[in-house]
């Protein structure tokens, strides 16, 4: 136990350094990359004065160190990420407003991916070289080779257009539905809080295709991981002894699965962090209106402060998730102690 608290303390101490690195990265990405965003925003036909004006507004007319200092100062003293170049709203507000939507999508999508992927992996390793294995491998091959946005379009065509089970891809709820009162910002949660069961059904209905898209695309990671770890575990002495003690096959697979737990949880964490940006395309396909879609819009419009703010927030979020991940892994596996 002593070792663990020590290691955790060490990690916590590392955080300020990491935060600084993320801030610098977000800054550097926008300010040190070649090319002048002002030129792009202004367009080819703009006069020099117009470009200079945009530069001044973006702050790109000042030297880099000065800009960096200003950026960091604003971040820490005013706790501000700046304002959007186009909407003039604070970036922070833009992000927090959309964050819950993306969170909902990512959580549901990952949940689906974990369940489906682990099921595939387990079948695959338990029935090695028999038909469930073949079926599972085929699923993995297919889902990992179809880009998520194309998978989304295929699902829209088949399940919305042909079969008609899913609603049109117009966002969280129907175009004519009145959104629930905003409490958490997450539509599904808010309908729950409002006890609006009809709307809850609608929300789930609209979430179906994007969630399935993410679940299918990311299931291959979990399928491969569980398959690899479980195959090893099912052949281990531990499992043989468990069987020799007369434990049921279900229990035996459970024993083996516990070994797969840590890598699966690790993958969940990594993908969770990656999906806040990674779900952007799927959000766009389904007009989800979350963080990712907003960021893509910002990139298309070259809303420099917004891009910067997005990178920073996603980076910090990733840090946070990784820290939590470390803690969870320690809690899950009694052997890990970080000496």
């Amino acid at each position, binding site marked *: 136990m002593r070792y663990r608290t020590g290691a955790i303390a060490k990690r916590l101490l590392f955080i300020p350094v*990491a935060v600084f*690195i*993320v801030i610098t*990265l977000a800054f550097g*990405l*926008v300010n040190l*990359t*070649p*090319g002048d*965003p002002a030129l*792009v925003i202004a367009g080819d036909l703009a006069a020099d004065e117009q470009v200079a004006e945009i530069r001044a507004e973006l702050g790109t007319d000042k030297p880099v160190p000065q800009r960096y200092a200003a950026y960091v100062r604003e971040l820490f003293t005013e706790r501000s990420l700046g304002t959007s170049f186009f909407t003039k709203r604070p970036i922070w507000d833009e992000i927090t407003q959309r964050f819950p939507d993306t969170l909902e999508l990512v959580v549901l999508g990952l949940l689906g991916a974990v369940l489906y992927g682990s099921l595939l992996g387990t079948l695959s390793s338990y029935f090695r070289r028999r038909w469930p294995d073949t079926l599972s491998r085929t699923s993995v*091959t297919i889902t*990992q*080779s*179809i*880009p998520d*946005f*194309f998978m989304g*379009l*295929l699902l*829209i*065509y088949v399940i*919305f*257009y042909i079969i008609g089970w899913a609603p*049109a*891809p117009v966002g969280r709820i129907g175009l004519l539905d009145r959104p629930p009162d905003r409490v958490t910002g997450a539509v599904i949660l808010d309908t729950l809080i409002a006890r609006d069961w009809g709307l809850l059904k609608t929300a789930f209905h609209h979430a179906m295709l994007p969630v399935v898209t993410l679940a299918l695309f990311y299931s291959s990671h979990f399928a491969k991981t569980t398959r*690899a770890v479980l*195959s090893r575990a099912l052949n281990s002495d531990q499992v043989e002894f468990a069987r020799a003690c007369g434990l049921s096959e279900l229990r035996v697979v459970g024993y083996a699965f516990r070994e797969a737990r840590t890598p699966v949880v690790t993958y969940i964490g*990594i993908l969770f*962090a*990656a*999906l*806040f*940006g*990674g779900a*952007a*395309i799927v959000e*766009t*396909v389904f007009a989800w209106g979350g963080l*990712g879609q907003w*960021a*893509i819009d910002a*990139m*298309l419009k*070259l809303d*420099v402060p917004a*891009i910067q703010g*997005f*990178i920073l927030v*996603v*980076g910090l979020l*990733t*840090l946070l998730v*990784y820290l939590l991940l470390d803690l969870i892994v320690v809690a899950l596996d009694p052997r890990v102690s970080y000496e």
Partner: protein
Amino acid sequence: MSKARLALAKALPKRAEMPAEGGRAGRALRALARGALAHKGLTIGFVVILLILLAGFFAPLPHDPIQPNPESTLQSPDGEFWFGTDRFGFDVFSRVFASARLDLPIALAGTLLSIAVGIPLGLAASNKSRWSERIMRGLDMFQSFPLLVLAFAIVALTGNTLRNIIFAIALVNVPRFIRLVRSEALVLRESRFIEAATAIGASRTRVMLRHVMPNTMGIVLAQASLAAAHAIIVIAGLSFLGIGITPPDASWGVMIRVGSQNIATGQWWVSFFPGAMVFVTIVAFNMVADGVTRVIGRAED
């Protein structure tokens, strides 16, 4: 001298397990090629990629891929337009194949660039010094970033020139090569034939370049194939979002984007065929990666 030779001969592994040696990476590759022919999946994957690439440049296309036919928009597949047309009147069939001219070379160039950067960095970081540990820590941080979005942001900010797209792809793929080459080199350096080479007085650089590096080629090739598959997805994603390649240039992502506006109303063919092409290409690259892994004996089972 002769004594040293003898000792060396003993230290060296037997011929059969002799790893590829110095400057003769060609031999390693030839061995790989022989193995490849014996492996069905690898051959198929390789041939498919080659065919798609060749078709992109040399196949006679029924219509001009970047010249729309305004009088025939959104036509379903028929004898005239085999894969139908999109809402601008572009022939989907011609464009699907013409897209390979841009998408595949960009993917391959990005991958090559990341290998070219990744191998030296990986070799350099393969000593167990504190510095290399720190570099790896930094790499961890970098990799923990959502790289796909980072690539999008980079292309958006720097402008969507081919060069920038290639850079972005290289950037997201570099860490995996650094990591791979480093871990391979760390293992190889412990092996006996490297010890033997060091024992006869080969310099550090020479050992690295002529003994360690050639022996990482197989696994690097497998990883490169996966990276290329990933690059295809990144390019398609970029173009799909309108950040990457822009119309009228043909690119699978652009085509899927154009078709995405019609899919909810049933005109499936505009998006479907380019999407299917992406699928086939990625499967082919994955087959190559899988095959190489098997041929060099690194497959899991």
